[in-house]
């Protein structure tokens, strides 16, 4: 079994971080992993993305042209990656910043108002955690516990934000589980 995904958004939205967390958590879960960032132009701004592979056997190509999942945090990313996802795969959309719907019908769509939820939880910078949670809830690619542990580690120096990040993660998780259940019902 191989889970692979591309996470994409604006620089500053923390997409590289949640990708790394997935890889760490995968490793903690005893899986083989690889994490590959875009390292765009030697300059600031613009969009960025990373590719994460979590697999039961050694990771072959860390480069994935047709991922199972695309987690898109802004509009340009939706436009770039929507078409690449494998049929039967999934697109996770940050509806807070993307005001159009996914055009494809052969993929599952998980809509996550990540910034709204994060704002509501009092930590506008935790939108990425919401999205990460939703991905976990929808795929169970790695265990929630492993990721929770990583959140604690990552923000160890800023204990104040740990809780809001955990909350964001869990709220996302619930949402991901829910959307998946709905999808399965509809599909059924």
């Amino acid at each position, binding site marked *: 079994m191989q889970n692979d995904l591309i996470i994409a958004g604006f620089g500053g939205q923390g997409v590289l971080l949640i990708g790394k967390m997935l890889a760490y958590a995968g490793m903690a879960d005893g899986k083989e992993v*690889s994490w590959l960032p875009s390292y765009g132009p030697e300059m600031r701004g613009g969009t960025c993305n990373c590719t994460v592979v979590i697999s039961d056997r050694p990771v*072959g190509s860390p*480069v994935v*042209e047709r991922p199972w999942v695309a987690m898109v945090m802004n509009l340009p990313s939706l436009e770039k990656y929507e078409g690449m996802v494998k049929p039967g795969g999934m697109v996770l959309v940050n509806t807070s910043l993307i005001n159009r719907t996914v055009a494809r019908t052969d993929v599952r769509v998980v809509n996550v108002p990540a910034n709204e939820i994060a704002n509501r939880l009092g930590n506008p910078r935790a939108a990425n955690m919401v999205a990460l949670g939703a991905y976990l809830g929808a795929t169970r690619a790695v265990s929630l516990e492993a990721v929770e542990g990583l959140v604690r580690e990552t923000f160890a120096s800023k204990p104040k934000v740990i809780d809001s990040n955990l909350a964001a993660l869990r709220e996302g998780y619930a949402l991901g589980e829910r959307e998946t259940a709905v999808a399965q019902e509809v599909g059924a």
Partner: protein
Amino acid sequence: MAKKLMKGCEAIGEAAVKAGCKLFFGYPITPQNEIPEYMAHRLPQVGGTFVQAESEVAASNMIYGAAGSGERVFTSSSSPGISLMQEGISYIAGSELPVVIVNIMRAGPGLGGILPSQSDYFQATKGGGHGDYRLLVLAPWSVQEAADLVQDAFDLADFYRNPVMVLGDGLIGQMMEPVEFKPERTPCKPLAPKEWAATGCSGDRPTNIVNSLFLDPEVLERHNQKLKAKYDRMVRDEVRCASYGTDRPYDVLVVAYGTVARVSSTALDDLRGEGVDAALFRPITLFPFPHAELRAAAEKAQEVLVVELSTGQMIEDVRLALEGRKPIHFLGRQGGMLISPEAVAEKVKAIQASSAEVRRG
């Protein structure tokens, strides 16, 4: 030691530390900035020294001096920076000093772009600097292998008293994978004391001179022949390569190195599912190139496909190895565009189809 998730650049830095290297001289350049940054933070912890050189030209001469004093030393850069080191590298090779040079290739020529590429193959393997010399060139395909080869690189450099280059593309530098460092590592070559080093002559020993200048042409010719003998010895003793799927019969042999080989291996897995017979040959040393091994592997194939992130450089070594025995195809991307498993698989299928057609007549 447990596995750790590390960026390629960091694993390379840590590998150098593990190999006992306490000196780094280098200059920032994407996509390998994390190497100097790692060393700046890590070396002081082990009593080592990090110096940010004013340029790659200076860096290549700093490692020249440090190696001449008998210490393990390394530098890293990316394509344009490596070009600036060509004179220095030629001096180091001419003076027979052991250094390790990491080139995390980006796309060129000129300023080009910063995305992954393999277009410095010629420069690395044929000698980008002047004069008759060779680098021993190692090409890892994963972060773990990068860490392993960097450690070996120090031993090989010391053993041959020759610069060793670890050649990776931007992917190797930037991606994260689990890495394990063996707690106790035995050098991959026997290591002799560096009695030739310029470290101050005590009263009795004659002065040591680190030098590539030989004004008398007869002396220089002997020096050149000595170097040549060393390279011939590498060709004999140091060839490394790997092959995948060569245990079963196959139609197409894919030849690729570094991350491209990795991508190709996934393509082969996918193809197997589709009932296509293909195998992979992966040179790990680019100089010495595994000519004989490749020839043997190609014997069993109908056709050969070379895959590179360039307009075709390693393909010359493949042609030298095969001497017209098999048709050679090429799949290349440039400019920082990556090759996907799908693209490799497609190309293999196309080759197989047309080759089958030809055979059917």
